[in-house]
């Protein structure tokens, strides 16, 4: 580029800076669109829905966001690495059920917890192995996985829910009530989000995740072990789904064989609303946290605003498409 053009670019840049924040700089942050959406939804409900700004309501939002968000964080990392996981809802259900059955059989909760997470890790590893070894689209493989494990769950339980009266320290640590109506799951959610953000943006592995989704051939040529990165992503996603499932079980004290159905799509919605690209290579965990909070606000806020709960899905659909449009505009500008 010749000096004049550079000069012109620098000046244009300076002008934009004077007007406010540079668009080009905004583009580096995938979560900008989600932040705008978050504020809009928050303000909208704060005005339209009485009691939306009460501690109870905010705690309720946080609880929904935490359980969905834990799943969505895994889905986000995997999506940035270039793969889908549609089986998270089934894995959530299977793990919660496995934990419940073991707890009822008198197995110590910590042991049952670790066993359920291991089971999920094995399912995730299998997903990843089939996808990377078979060079198959993860959309199809995990769709199959989703149906298979849901079917197993229904068959094993005969379709009946399982209730569990017991309490334990582990269940309290996972999802106990905290002051203000919050649940411990909120802390897990924020902790996992913080760690995932650090890994993604501040470690070589995070670099490898971005590269695996952004341009797998280039990544491979530079020595990134793309298949291994994806494999780890599948395992991590399944384990986080299991954690969410056991957290939810600890809150309800029961689990039914359809638990987690639809969570895979809500997790994708939260992820994409948060600015992560469906096609991989670009995204942010912070955006996903905001996306999960938006889902939580919509679910709680609509009820508080007096709208029938059935409108929830319709509204989420609108938010999702709106957020994607905003995200795309930011990416194309500057």
């Amino acid at each position, binding site marked *: *580029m010749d000096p004049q053009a*550079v000069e012109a*670019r*620098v000046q244009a*840049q300076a002008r934009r800076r004077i007007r406010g924040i540079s668009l*080009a*700089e905004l*583009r*580096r942050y995938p979560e900008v669109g989600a932040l705008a959406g978050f504020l809009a939804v928050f303000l909208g409900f704060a005005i339209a829905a009485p009691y939306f700004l009460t501690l109870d309501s905010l705690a309720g939002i946080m609880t929904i966001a935490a359980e969905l968000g834990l799943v969505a964080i895994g889905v986000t990392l995997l999506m940035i690495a270039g793969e889908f996981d549609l089986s998270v809802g089934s894995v959530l259900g299977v793990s919660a059920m496995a934990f419940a059955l073991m707890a009822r059989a008198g197995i110590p909760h910590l042991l049952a917890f670790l066993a359920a997470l291991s089971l999920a890790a094995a399912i995730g590893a299998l997903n990843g192995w089939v996808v990377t070894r078979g060079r198959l689209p993860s959309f199809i493989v995990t769709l199959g996985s989703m149906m298979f494990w849901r079917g197993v769950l229904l068959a094993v339980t005969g379709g009946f829910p399982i209730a569990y009266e017991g309490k334990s320290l582990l269940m309290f640590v996972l999802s106990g009530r905290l002051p203000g109506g919050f649940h411990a799951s909120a802390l897990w959610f924020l902790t996992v989000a913080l760690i995932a953000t*650090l890994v993604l943006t*501040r*470690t*070589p592995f*995070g*670099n*490898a995740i*971005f*590269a695996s989704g*952004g*341009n797998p*051939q*280039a*990544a*491979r*040529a*530079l*020595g*990134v072990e793309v298949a291994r990165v994806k494999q780890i992503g599948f395992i991590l996603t399944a384990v986080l789904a299991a954690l969410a499932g056991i957290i939810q079980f600890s809150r309800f004290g029961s689990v039914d064989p359809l638990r987690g159905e639809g969570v895979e799509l809500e997790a994708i919605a939260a992820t994409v609303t948060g600015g992560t*690209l469906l096609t991989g*290579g*670009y995204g942010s965990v912070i955006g996903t946290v905001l996306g999960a909070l938006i889902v939580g606000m919509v679910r709680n806020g609509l009820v508080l605003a007096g709208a029938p709960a059935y409108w929830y899905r319709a509204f989420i659909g609108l938010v999702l498409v709106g957020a994607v449009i905003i995200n795309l505009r930011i990416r194309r500008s500057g």
Partner: protein
Amino acid sequence: MSEGRWLVEMRGIVKRFDGVEALAGVDFAVGYQEVVGLLGDNGAGKSTLIKVLTGVYPPDDGEIYFEGRPVRFRSPREARALGIETVYQDLALVEMMSIARNFFLGREPVRRVGPFSFLDMREMEQVTRQVLEEIGIRVRSVWEPVSVLSGGERQSIAIGRALHFGVRLLILDEPTSALSIKETRKVLGYVEEVRRRGLSVIFITHNIYHVYPVADRLVILSHGRKIGDFRKTDVSPEMVAELIAGGITLPEEGKP
């Protein structure tokens, strides 16, 4: 031929895909601080030869020597560890990632905090900025995505990266075929710089005019065979172009 003459030498390389011979016993060598133009029409076997050299494909027959020692790479990673690096035309960089992250991809500098390794962002920023300055590319920030750069700038950064990490043999796969004339000239200038710094270069192209200004030697492939191996001073670009276009009608050259 003395053992010390070649940085890398491939002898009698054969590679078949589903019974079709993509390489039918090719000899190919690159000397120290030598720029070799690897020429041929589409499907001549240029890419296959390079992929065998860099460990992407194992050869079905033949030997590879690096600095006189026999080597057998099972992955690009192993070839890379010896200092053989390929810059692919469209695969050089990950567009959506920042310039600095691309620069260090796969070789990130880290700072250890207890058992954890975190990216050394300051080092990444400083080194990348310095290399960009040397190349003559000005950007607002090294954290801008690569997509803000032109094709020539991307090639130059990929080459600069190879230089920075102490590569011995740089393989450029069609580095100029998608570039404007002005940008091509810049990249060629950069190839000269690479040789001055003591590296060897394999420059793959099907356009003799792109490589002629910088090459020391020209190797021409056709249908999986070597049909020409000349010092540049011995041939004109027109002759080479004729050879590439004419393909196998010319008699096979003697082996080196």
